[in-house]
C-alpha cells in the first residue's frame, strides 16, 4: 500500500509534478504493483550475495590518454536555452 502523501513525497524526490487526479490514480495503481512486488519479502535470503551486475568485469580501464571531446557548440546545439558558452537555467531563487 502507498497513500497519497507518500506518492507526493516520492514525486517531490523525483522532481515530478503531479496533478490532483494523477496523484489519486497513481496511489491506486502503485499500490497494486507494490502488492505484487512485496512477494519477495516471503523469501529467506539470509546470507545471499546481491547481484549488481551479471557479467564479471573487473576494473575495465583504458589507457589514460587525452583525446578529443565533444565540441562545445555541438554540445550546446540541442539546449532549450543557452548563453554564449554554457547552458542557461532559471534562477533557483525565483
Amino acid at each position: 500500500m502507498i497513500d497519497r502523501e507518500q506518492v507526493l513525497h516520492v514525486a517531490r524526490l523525483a522532481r515530478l509534478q503531479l496533478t490532483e487526479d494523477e496523484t489519486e490514480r497513481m496511489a491506486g495503481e502503485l499500490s497494486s504493483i507494490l502488492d505484487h512486488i512485496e512477494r519477495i519479502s516471503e523469501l529467506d535470503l539470509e546470507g545471499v550475495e546481491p547481484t549488481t551486475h551479471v557479467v564479471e568485469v573487473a576494473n575495465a580501464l583504458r589507457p589514460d590518454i587525452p583525446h578529443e571531446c565533444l565540441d562545445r557548440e555541438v554540445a550546446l546545439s540541442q539546449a532549450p536555452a543557452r548563453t554564449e558558452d554554457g547552458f542557461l537555467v532559471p534562477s533557483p531563487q525565483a
Partner: protein
Amino acid sequence: MIELSARQLADAIGRGDVSAAEAFDAYRARASADDLNAYTWVAPEGSAPSNGDGPLNGVPLAVKDLFCTQDVPSQSGSRILEGYLPPYTATVVRQLAEAGAPLLAKTNQDEFAMGSSNENSGFGPVRNPWDRDRVPGGSSGGSAAAVAAGSAPWALGTDTGGSIRQPAAMCGIVGLKPTYGSVSRYGMIAFASSLDQAGPLTRDVTDAALLYAHMTGRDACDSTSLEHPESIVLPSAERLDGVRLGVPRDMLAYEGVEPGVMETFERALRTAEELGARVVDVSLPHAEHALAAYYIIAPAEASSNLARFDGVRYGLRRDADEGLLAMYTHTRHDGFGDEVKRRILIGTYALSSGYYDAYYGRAQQVRTKIADDFRAAFADCDLIATPTAPTTAFKLGERTGDPLAMYLGDLFTIPFSLAGLPAISLPAGLSNELPVGLQLGGPAFSENRILDAAFALEQAIGFEPLAVTA
C-alpha cells in the same frame, strides 16, 4: 525483392541481380507508405547509398528510436525528446552501417522502452500487421511490425525484460536477446542499464545470426561490454540429436497462459523430439519471484537514468519563468507519459531512505538466486524452452487500465534477462490465427547453440509468415 529474406537480398545484391541503391529505394518507398505507425522517421529521398560496401552488401536496416543516430531524430518514443538530434551515433548502429547495413528508418517504441504493447509511445500506438486491432507487443513494437509487414528487411531492437522477444512472438518473426555485455550499449538511451541489451528482429533465424554476427564486440565506450568468446556462424543444423531441452514446468503452471499458446508450445516440443532432442523437466524455483524483482530493479535504475531529462541540456522545457524547481517538475510532468511516471515513482520509492534494503537490496539477492537456478538447470540440459509470452497479441486498449496485467505478459522472458542470458523467440505456429512464439534460452554466450537449434526447429515447423505483397 521484397519477399527475399535479408540474407537472400544480400546475396542477390552480391550477384548483381539488384543494386544496393535499388534495394534501399524500394524499402524506403515501403517504409514511407507504412500505415501501422511503425516508424518515427524514414530516410529522405536521395539518401540511398551508391554501393553496398561491407559483408552485408547494403541491405537497409530499421533501427529502434532509442538508438542515437547522429543528426537523425532519436526520441526513445518520448515527447520529452521530441525532435532531439544526437551529436553521435550508437556504436552498434555505426558497426552495422560499416558492415553494409545503412540506416533506413527509425522505429516506434514504448516510451523509454517501458511497455509490452507499444501503447505507451508518445507518438501513438503501433498496429499489428496480423490484425490491425491488436498490439504488436513491445517495447520494440515498431521494429517487429515493420519486419513482419515487410517494410524493412530487418531491424534493431532492445530487450530489457522481453522487449525484443515478446513483440517478435506477437508479430510472427524472430527476435534474439543476446548475452548481456555482448553488444555495446553506447548510444542507447538507457532504461535499466544492468539489463538493457540490443538485438536483431528478423524474418528468419539465419537473418538473426547474420545481423548479430556484426553486432558483437568490446567497445571502449561501454565498460560493461565484452568480446564474444565465439564467432557467430550462420546456423545449419537439421537435427537436434543429443540436445537436452529443459522445460521449467513449475514456471509454466501460471494460470494466465492461453490454452492455444500451451498447445502450440507442446507441439513444438514434440517436433523437437522428432528431430532427436530429449525433453527433460528442469526446475527454476525462484522464477516465480522474477517479475517482482524485475519491477524493483528496472524502475530503480530507470528512475536514476531518467533524472537527466530536466529541461537543461536537450529536449522539452516548460515554465522557465517560474524558477528552476518549477521548470524541472513541470518539464517532467508534461514530457513523460503515464507509464514512465509510474516507473519513476516506483523506482524512487524503492531506492528511498528506509526502503532500499527491503526492496532494491532484496531484489538483487533474488537476482542471485535466479542466476543460481539457471546454473543448476543447465547442468541437466543444454537449452531451456518456454512459450515466449503467455498470450498471443491482445486488442489495443485491452490492458492499458491494468498495469500489473500488462507486466504479467513478460513472465517467461524476465528470468533470462535478470540472469543476463541469451534467448531467442521464433514462430512456433498460430493460435486463433495469431502467431505464437517459442522461446529458447541458453547459458551465457551460447548464441551459436541457440541459433542452431532454432534453425532446425524453424525448418521442421515450417511456419507460414505473413504474406508480404509488393
